[in-house]
């Protein structure tokens, strides 16, 4: 039996009718058309599906959509404001932190969450915050550099 889900995605209030067993990742990608978040494993191992729920990073492949009832979800698409990419997105591009880009939406969201919480993370803190986002292309160095470039000394 379908259930009604109300949530805010990228500043837009939405409601959808969904089967209760659908994951947030499935609903975002298949029902709402936000294909930014990716499925790399579907088991919580790769981080490609990372989105923010009320500002905190979650693995949307492991989250039932109904768990975010009434909550605010931000996907990688939602970081673009007035046609302008978020500084995190720009830093990823400029530092060469993107190769194939399949892990990028997830890594960008983890980085965004980190910087919101801690505006001046150390290299080690960046590595830890991104440890759940697997990347097979970049060897992580440029991702760490990109995030580090946004650290603001207090």
């Amino acid at each position, binding site marked *: 039996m379908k259930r009604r889900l109300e949530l805010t995605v990228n500043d837009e209030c939405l409601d959808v009718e969904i089967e209760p067993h659908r994951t947030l990742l499935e609903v975002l*990608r298949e029902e709402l058309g*936000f*294909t*930014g*978040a*990716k*499925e*790399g*494993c*579907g*088991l*919580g*191992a*790769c981080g*490609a599906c990372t989105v923010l729920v009320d500002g905190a990073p979650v693995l949307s492949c492991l989250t039932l959509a109904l768990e975010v009832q009434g909550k605010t979800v931000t*996907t*990688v*698409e939602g*970081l*673009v404001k007035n046609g302008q*990419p978020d500084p995190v*997105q*720009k830093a*990823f*591009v*400029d*530092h*060469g932190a*993107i*190769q*194939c*880009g*399949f*892990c*990028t*939406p997830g890594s*960008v969201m983890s980085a965004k969450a980190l910087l919101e919480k801690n505006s001046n993370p150390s290299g080690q803190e*960046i*590595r*830890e915050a*991104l*440890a*759940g*986002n*697997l*990347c*097979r*292309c*970049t*060897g*992580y*160095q*440029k*991702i*760490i550099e990109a995030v580090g470039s946004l650290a603001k000394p207090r």
Partner: protein
Amino acid sequence: MNSESYAYIGRKQPQIDGLAKATGEAKFTTDLVLPRMLIGKLLGSPYPHARVRNVDASRALALKGVKAVVTGKDVPGKKYGVFVSRMDETGLTVKARFVGDPVAAVAAVDEETAMEALGLISVDYEILPAVFDPEEAMKEGAPVIHDEYERNIVADTHYDFGDVEAGFRECDHIREDNFFSQTVSHATLEPRGVLADCDVAGKLTLWTSTQAPFQVRRDIIRALDIPASKLRVIKAHVGGGFGGKADTYPMQVAATLLAMKTGRPLKIIATREEEINVRRRAPMSIFTKTGVKKDGAIMAQYLKILADSGAYSSTSILMMYNSGLTCMIPYRIPNFKYDGYQIYTNKMVTGAMRGHGANQPRFAVESQLDMIAEDIGMDPADLRLRNASQKGDTTVSGLHFVSCELSRSIEESTRNVGWKEKRRQKGTNRGIGIACGGFVCGARISGHTASGTNIHVHEDGGVTVITGSADIGQGSNSVMAQFVAEELGIPLSDISVIAADTETTPIDNGTFSSRVTFYGGNATLLAAREVKQMMAGIAATLLKSNAEDIVFRDKLVFVRDDPSRSIPFGKLAKATEGMGHGRLIIGQGQWAPTNTQFPDKKTKWGNVSGSYSFATQIAEVEVDTETGQVKVISITIGDDCGQVINPLSVQGQADGSVAMGIGHALLEQLLFGSNGQLMNPSLLDFKIPTAMECPPTTLLEVGTPDPIGPYGAKEIGEGLLITTVPAICNAIYNAVGVRITELPITPEKILKALDEKKRREKP
């Protein structure tokens, strides 16, 4: 012109589609949706070796939402494969050869229905005896996996150059050692997938995650017996390949067949479990015998390699060719013999993976060189320097090096890390190790491998580059744009790239063998120069000068000695189009090296690549002798990839290679059960390095512009990975005195070896 005077070459360029990827706009196959699209799923065999007697799909077809079921009987059974001489796949099979080998496929309105339908298909199997170990499989009387291949030998490659026996007789010291390099997964973050569409006229279009759309077309038209003109294959954004998406996979055949059958678009996306079960790196058992003179000069080398092919051939003959060939690159070896065998087994298929056949013997040889250095009391870096290949060398096997800075790469990387001092440090658990290697810039052993690019200049000066080269994440679209930007003096933002579409772009073999920058880059340069020549002629008329004196830079076209006589590039484009009776500004380039030969059929002699890359890698590690954990502290690379085109992507290739090498050396291994079934097909159980394990890499560029590569560029995508593993192995030995010859180097192996060492030392 030196690199200082370039506007774009040698300068950091973010990928031209970087922002699309960073914002979620880039569309990978999984993101594509068409109206009335169905979802497909494959049914894999539960047995490692079994004939399909019958498939009863009636219950599946009766399920609401199921639109079609196809089986091995529905494909014409014409075999396809990477090499014409080794075609052995049909897409869906009537004889399963490994657990998971697809025997049927279903189309349904959604994934859940498709999954349910799979469970309702009943297959009657005749179970056949199976064999899993390559050594067992090549014995007389072992189960035959493909009828045409006796003793399951799919590739046997032999070299015998110089006089190896005589060479060994001249040696002061000879070592014989055995090594084993395990099997690992490509583990691209994107699981493979395909979307197939069939229009009313029967024209098929495939969007797919591939490194080689033209190969996919070639294979599918064979497998399904359809004319080439009826199938268009378009590469979507690809989430990494590393060789694993270089050949056609069953899902692509099944999706095409189901789209034909249902007349509806149909998408199949692999789960991670299915993804891991498609391709993997070949495990190899390697026997190495190397002989040297007192001064370290290598006189003779012999390698015998036994590789597991898994159930199908894939790239077998090229892989086994590469395993021997790449041993000839870094060092001068006057006498060389090699016997390589690849053997079918009833396990999932092995195929190309970054470094393709070079990694495994490199690990063996570089480990053994360190053992030899210790035996003869020589510094391992000096031993390598003593034997390093030089520019102008032709190897005994016919490889010819038009550029080579290996000696410099050894000297600079050792100097950079403080090699002599660090090697001497005693009493710590830190160590430092070195390894050298080299790689082809596109090896051609058969068939056609030219690349092509077309360039259109629009009336406002915008440029479209249409290339067959497939960007799979490494950034080749950006590199092609950089070449055009440099030639035409316009920014990358004015250039768009259309790539890898069998209907609209020039034919291209695909992205593998580290050929893209070398081949595609040269083709793009030729196309850009054709456009430039046409426009320079017009500019010369307009500016009252000679075409040779016209310069293109900063969106301006001007006279070299008098830049005030200039015309904006956009204006010149418009003027060029309008001149005379009007014309189109189109450039065409196609390129393949002319200094190569096919390897001789019998002897394998021949120069298969226009140029070769060279690299030295130095790893510094720390070993925890309590836990056996190895931590890689730093990696330093002296790299000769010729002229660097884009330092950002070159560094990215280095970082990514190092990460993959750490995985191969220390972490990764695919495991198989007693039925040949994959035991760890998930990213939870097959662990790849995370941001916590990967150290910073220092990349020292020691190359000089290559005379053949575009702007002097050579490859960097694969050659670096092959030296990471042995550099780590050698560093571990330097740190704690244990030599691990079977990968991966797990903490258990370290602890066991330390224990044995202790017992040996105080009996």
